[in-house]
């Protein structure tokens, strides 16, 4: 059992382990929304967009957390406002602000020759450099994020599943979406010291995507995502300790491997399960003929419906 307990002898390593678990759990919890609302691209964008805030705060000697939060929040708001119109789509707006903000960070760093090495820790993470103060901040932020996700679970779920119905009921859908982006930003910011800007996306997406393959309900998916994220933090950290790998890289590789295993072996949605279910052969033929439920665009409502539909192209 020495391999399990030895690494914990040093406080340095205890801190790193706690930080990895906090990061993994928070990312895994909010990851349910990232996966189901297809926010992967915006998550990647936000993680890069906080960079100029990090650099500026670092240079000015103020809280890096505050600088990153402000940069991320400004970018979220800018994306939300620009993509509200119809001419610029959301993914385009994300591309513009994500690259623009990151470029600003690069320009800022190029004017500050002395800081390059320290700041590079934010790009790839520096788990061993995390102090207790940062861990406390991660814990408080993680609890706050999860607390809001729990308190507004109904509203966020409704706005995610059926935006139009949520609006019809009078819910402030735009504000709820903005809130989700701010929670995402906070999660990213406190994860940077553990996995860094470039890899944080994997922690937002991979544990939740793995959970999606294992369970069929939203709340279990969020709980499983958080548990898996924390578990990957622990396993990745041990791998990194024993093999001398980069901690951030090791955690993300563990997450990726676990996803692949679930993708193949998941009892309900894995490749193997699907294969096994297709035998005997009549099942395969049946599947080919029947449209999948939920995608039927039948027109049993009457022939008149069908013919009018075809004759009038959608739109004006």
């Amino acid at each position, binding site marked *: 059992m020495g391999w399990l307990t030895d690494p914990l002898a040093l406080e340095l390593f205890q801190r790193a382990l706690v930080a990895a678990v906090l990061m993994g759990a928070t990312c895994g919890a909010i990851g349910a929304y990232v996966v*189901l609302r297809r926010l992967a691209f915006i998550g990647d964008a936000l993680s890069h967009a906080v960079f100029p805030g990090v650099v500026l705060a670092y240079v000015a000697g103020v809280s890096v957390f505050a600088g990153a939060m402000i940069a991320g929040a400004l970018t979220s708001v800018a994306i939300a406002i620009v993509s509200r119109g*119809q001419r610029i789509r959301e993914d385009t707006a994300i591309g513009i602000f994500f690259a623009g903000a990151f470029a600003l960070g690069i320009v800022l760093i190029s004017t500050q020759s002395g800081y390059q090495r320290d700041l590079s820790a934010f790009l790839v993470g520096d788990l061993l450099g995390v102090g207790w103060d940062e861990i406390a901040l991660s814990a408080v932020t993680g609890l706050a994020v999860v607390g809001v996700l729990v*308190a*507004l679970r*109904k*509203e966020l*779920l*409704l706005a*995610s*599943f*059926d935006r*139009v*119905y949520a*609006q*019809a*009921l*009078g819910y402030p859908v735009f504000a709820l979406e903005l809130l989700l982006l701010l929670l995402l930003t906070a999660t990213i910011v406190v994860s940077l010291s553990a996995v860094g800007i470039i890899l944080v996306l994997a922690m937002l997406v991979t544990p939740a995507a793995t959970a*999606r393959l294992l*369970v*069929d*309900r*939203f709340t279990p*998916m969020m709980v499983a995502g958080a548990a898996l994220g924390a578990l990957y933090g622990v396993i990745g950290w041990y791998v990194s300790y024993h093999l001398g790998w980069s901690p951030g890289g090791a955690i993300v590789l563990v997450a990726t491997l676990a996803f692949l295993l679930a993708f193949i072996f998941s009892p309900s949605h894995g490749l193997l399960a699907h294969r096994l279910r297709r035998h005997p052969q009549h099942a395969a033929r049946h599947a080919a003929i029947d449209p999948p*439920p*939920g*995608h*039927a*665009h*039948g*027109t*049993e*409502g*009457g*022939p*008149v*419906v*069908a*013919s*009018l*539909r*075809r*004759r*009038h*192209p*959608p*739109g*004006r």
Partner: protein
Amino acid sequence: MTTNGGLLAIQGLWAGYGEGWALEDVTLAIPPGRLVSVIGPNGSGKSTLLRAILGLVPRRRGAVSLGGLPIDERRSDVAYVPQRELVDWSFPIGASQVVMMGRYPRIGPVRGATVADRDAVDRALERVGMADLGGRQIGALSGGQQQRVFLARALVQEASVLLLDEPMTGVDRGTEEAITALMRELRDGGATILHATHDLEGAADVSDLLCFVNGRVVAHGPPDETFTPQTLHATFGGEVMIVDSGDHAHVHGGGHHHGGHAHPDAG
């Protein structure tokens, strides 16, 4: 279950996005306890009318009120059944969870559903004939069953106005009949019901009022007065054929013959 919400009044409503108008100058007054079919070709503004009542499409001029109050103050008293295609049915939730969403405004944030809320959900599922399917993942339901789930979600709101956006599209005959029966039952209980539809004959059979729409209200009134070749022609242009067999005008989409002697509408 549903209550009389008073007069639904639409006054000089203009609605649409951007520069054009999807709907021009709509004025309608619908007393409680009426079943109204909103009829028109695709892109005519049927859905827009329902959405503009709720404010989902910007109301650029005019006003909508319910029982004398601006409708925006009575949002949760209006139940909306959106088109089924608009949501992601692979979402990891069960049928009863979707139905419960109709209770969310009542429950409020933070708190969880009470026993009364769960009872309401069970009753609504039973009412749409899905009592034993509440635990089913929504993606595993047929199109008709998904539509029933949406209907049950509207029922648990216990609203006085129901707006249904093409509820009959892509559903089986049994679901169609169940929806029709339910709409009549709710109407008899005092609810105001508007449903957008393509099904001209079905609409004429079940509705108290027909509202023909094509960018504006072409005609509005009881089927006897409005279901005429003139109205149909004004609403659908040359795309509809009228088959006159005895005292009933049967309508078919252009080029879609059903045996009988069909001729293009002359006028």
